[in-house]
């Protein structure tokens, strides 16, 4: 290997020279660069989101008028099952992991994640499990037991088709990738922070990524156990959930929701993190009450494990259980409220610049508040006896997940797009996207608060004309179509940026955190020299203290450099590209397909996975020096 420039990581240097987005298919299949994996996650998540969005469109079309029979009920049931499952596992989580991948190492001053090949492995599992799940449409029908898959409806007797087998196996497979991702980001954030980047100096987005990694690690195992039980019940005739054999089907509900509720915070805390970074930047003020915002995030994550029974208030678990879980659920409102007030206080007295990222962040505050308040309504178990499993709850969690997760992710998208691509998006199109989304979202989901309270249960393919719910449903359907249209300016904007986007420069927003010191898009190794951090918003204080500079400098300069130098003063060791994660993921995916009933396929898959594991283990992890 040559010297100087080429020292930037052996083969990895070649990848860098090609640029983040160039390079052939092979370079994408073998990449271990967190930024490229982030882009893969993003594109995959976006495609699944559009697919699940179209499923929702079909659902709303069927519900536009009472007693319609446009869609066959069985197909309708598949659609809402796939809509929910896709949005949670194959759109929401991948988009969040996409942001973790791209942004977290940049925010903590690292050159990659702790386990780059494991990172690639997680992505391939996600992609293959998603494709596997969707292939069910061609093999006798998609899962139709709801994303929550309550037994005994989902056991072999009441769901004899293969749909639920696809559900169980796909989620087991993607769960492996999610847990691996959780480990990866936890280790990365704990161990790979730049010098001086103490925990209480972490940007809020990274803080929330840390919490979410912990949530993933703690919540996916019970779900995995639940899925394994379900797989055994369906495939081997065991009786983990079989009431006739003396077991209790409610066990599944506990295992599902002790995962399912933290999952909601897995989806929403990263959005809170984005907003906590976006609002200060576009207010030109530091985050108000940083430690309070951090600790309220920790509190939300902690409480998230103590509230799962609020999905089960109608099960009949008794007054004491319901009172305890009702109280715990109400407690969640306190740290959530604290965050909202701190964000408003951050804006107070600031210089607010209404760029699209800021608009979506403000939108989150307004919309999420509505979802939070309706959440308090069904935190009260007696009130929930009327609301649970109705469209009121559907309205609630769409306000939370669209108002929270989606608005937050859009804010993050507009905020970091220049960093990720080096191009500026069109501001007008971004604003059009925001306003359309805001209007469409409310038009779709506000009316169904009423239809729920007035007697429309969830997961019903139609409703009687006599219920008087026509108008609410019709408005909601119109809103849903507008919602689809709202994606047009977004797609147009991507095209615009690609063709005519202005160069972004390292820091187009005058943002304060260190991801904005490096070029846009960042080089393969992110930072030519690792910054030394002595405060939360170093870029707003480039000359505050002597001794601040790049880590490893023999004589630290007196100025925090706003822009990374072009050349690395010393060799940088970067991980090699590797195809072994792909091989191992393919092996596990084959074994999963075999789980549908082919033992030879299981063995083949396991053999391939073991081969991948060996290749992985004996491959030199790092090139260069």
């Amino acid at each position: 290997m040559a010297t100087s420039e080429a020292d930037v990581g052996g083969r990895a240097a070649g990848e860098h020279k090609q640029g983040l987005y160039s390079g052939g298919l092979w370079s994408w299949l073998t990449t271990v660069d967190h930024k490229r994996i982030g882009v893969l996650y993003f594109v995959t998540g976006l495609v699944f989101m559009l697919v699940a969005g179209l499923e929702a469109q079909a659902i709303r079309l069927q519900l536009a008028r009472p007693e319609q029979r446009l869609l066959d009920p069985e197909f309708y049931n598949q659609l809402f099952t796939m809509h929910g499952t896709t949005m949670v596992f194959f759109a929401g989580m991948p988009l969040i992991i996409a942001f973790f991948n791209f942004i977290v190492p940049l925010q903590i001053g690292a050159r990659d994640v702790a386990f780059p090949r494991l990172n690639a492995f997680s992505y391939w599992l996600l992609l293959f499990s998603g494709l596997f799940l969707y292939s069910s449409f061609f093999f006798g029908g998609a899962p139709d037991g709801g994303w929550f898959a309550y037994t005994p409806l989902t056991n072999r007797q009441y769901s004899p088709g293969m749909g639920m087998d696809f559900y169980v196996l796909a989620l087991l497979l993607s769960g492996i990738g999610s847990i691996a991702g959780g480990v990866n980001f936890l280790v990365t954030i704990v161990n790979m922070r730049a010098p001086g980047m103490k925990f209480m100096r972490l940007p809020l987005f990274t803080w929330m990524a840390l919490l979410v990694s912990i949530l993933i690690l703690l919540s996916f195992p019970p779900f995995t156990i639940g899925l394994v039980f379900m797989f055994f019940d369906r495939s081997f005739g065991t009786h983990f959930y079989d009431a006739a054999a003396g077991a209790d089907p409610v066990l599944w509900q506990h295992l599902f929701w002790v995962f399912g509720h933290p999952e909601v915070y897995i989806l929403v805390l990263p959005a809170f993190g984005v907003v906590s970074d976006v609002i200060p930047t576009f207010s030109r003020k530091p985050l108000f009450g940083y430690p309070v915002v951090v600790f309220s995030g920790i509190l939300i994550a902690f409480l998230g494990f103590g509230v799962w029974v609020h999905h089960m208030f109608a099960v009949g678990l008794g007054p004491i259980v319901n009172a305890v879980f009702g109280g715990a659920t109400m407690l969640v409102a306190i740290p959530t409220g604290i965050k909202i007030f701190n964000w408003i206080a951050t804006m107070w007295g600031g210089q607010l610049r209404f760029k699209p990222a800021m608009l979506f962040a403000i939108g989150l505050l307004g919309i999420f508040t509505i979802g939070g308040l309706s959440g308090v309504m069904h935190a009260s178990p007696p009130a929930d006896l009327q609301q649970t499993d109705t469209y009121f709850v559907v309205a609630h969690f769409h306000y939370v997940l669209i108002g929270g997760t989606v608005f937050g992710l859009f804010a993050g998208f507009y905020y970091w797009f220049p960093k990720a691509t080096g191009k500026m998006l069109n501001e007008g199109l971004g604003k059009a996207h925001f306003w359309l989304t805001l209007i469409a979202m409310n038009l779709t989901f506000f009316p169904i608060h009423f239809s729920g309270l007035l007697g429309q249960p969830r997961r019903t393919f139609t409703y009687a004309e006599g219920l008087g719910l026509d108008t609410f449903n019709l408005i909601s359907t119109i809103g849903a179509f507008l919602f689809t249209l709202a994606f047009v300016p977004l797609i147009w904007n991507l095209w615009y940026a690609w063709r005519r986007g202005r160069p972004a420069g390292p820091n187009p927003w005058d943002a304060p955190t260190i991801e904005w010191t490096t070029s846009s898009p960042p080089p393969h190794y992110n930072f030519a020299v690792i910054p030394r951090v002595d405060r939360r918003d170093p870029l707003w204080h480039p000359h505050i203290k002597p001794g601040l500079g790049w880590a490893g400098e023999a004589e630290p300069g007196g100025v925090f450099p706003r822009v990374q130098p072009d050349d690395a003063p010393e060799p940088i060791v970067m991980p090699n590209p590797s195809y072994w994660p792909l091989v191992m993921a393919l092996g596990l995916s084959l074994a999963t397909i075999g789980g549908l009933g082919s033992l030879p396929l299981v063995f083949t898959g396991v053999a391939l996975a073991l081969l991948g594991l060996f290749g992985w283990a004996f491959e030199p992890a790092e090139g260069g020096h």
Partner: protein
Amino acid sequence: MGLFFAAVAVAACGGTYPQSALDPSSDFAGRLDGLFMQIFWWAVGVFVLVEGVLLYTVFRWREDPARGRPPEVHGHVLMEIGWTVIPALILVAIAIPTIRTIFLVDRPTADPDALVVEVTGRQWWWEFTYPELGITTANEMHIPLGRTVDLRLRSADVIHSFWVPRLGGKRDVVPGRENQLWFRPDSVGVFWGQCAEYCGTAHALMGLRVLVDAPADFEAWVTTNRSNAARPADSEARAGQGVFMANACVSCHEIRGTGARGQLGPDLTHVGSRLTIGAGLLDNNLENLIRWIDSTQVVKPGTLMPEVDLTESQIQQLAAYLLGLR
């Protein structure tokens, strides 16, 4: 938006919504509604406050170069305490009536005179059995005004949820468990309900009706329903009975006083007196009965009742027979 919400909520009490949770007609539903409205008004207050402050902040502090760079403010301890304590107090104000209500509605009824009705959820219809009265019926539950009913909820297959919003909140119907739900209706009328836990293909069509009768009317209903099935009144109905007994119908349905002893489907002893057929799906009349028997799987896709191969006139006769079972 909050006011809009309130306006619609008030309008919703008008009575054009037979399945409204906002129009209670029993002690039980009344308590849920009272609690909900209490929380609702707190929420409206917080909504107006938060959104108001948010909008004011956004307009007041929009970019203005004349103001220069904002001063650095990192927090304020008293404010943090304020917006922690005040929401906590509001939650306490909500939690107290909540817990009171929980210990009322999540416990069995204390009323010793309560009328026990056993409710069995089945894919995709409801069975009601009155153990004290020796009556079994389907999809329509008659109860007397002014007396507490004590429902014992069981499932014959998957999880369902019993929900008649104007009388009581949801209670899941879980295999292997017996759940209880009670309420005392405070006006006569027909109350709509339907299954609220997703239970498979025809979940959307698993409706029910609760008929709250004046005590005398209820007594009359009891007398009628304890008796065996009426004999066919005319030749067409007699022919219909023959069709019923000679075909697959008998293997699933019971008609007391005849040879039909099936237990898988609804008891049809007095089916002619019901308001609806197909679990709240269609008005009960000759035309709909014919439609139901003729194309069951079209009217209610997924239903476990097969389409029996009958001629048009046989179906006509069968429908006439069933309608005569009053």
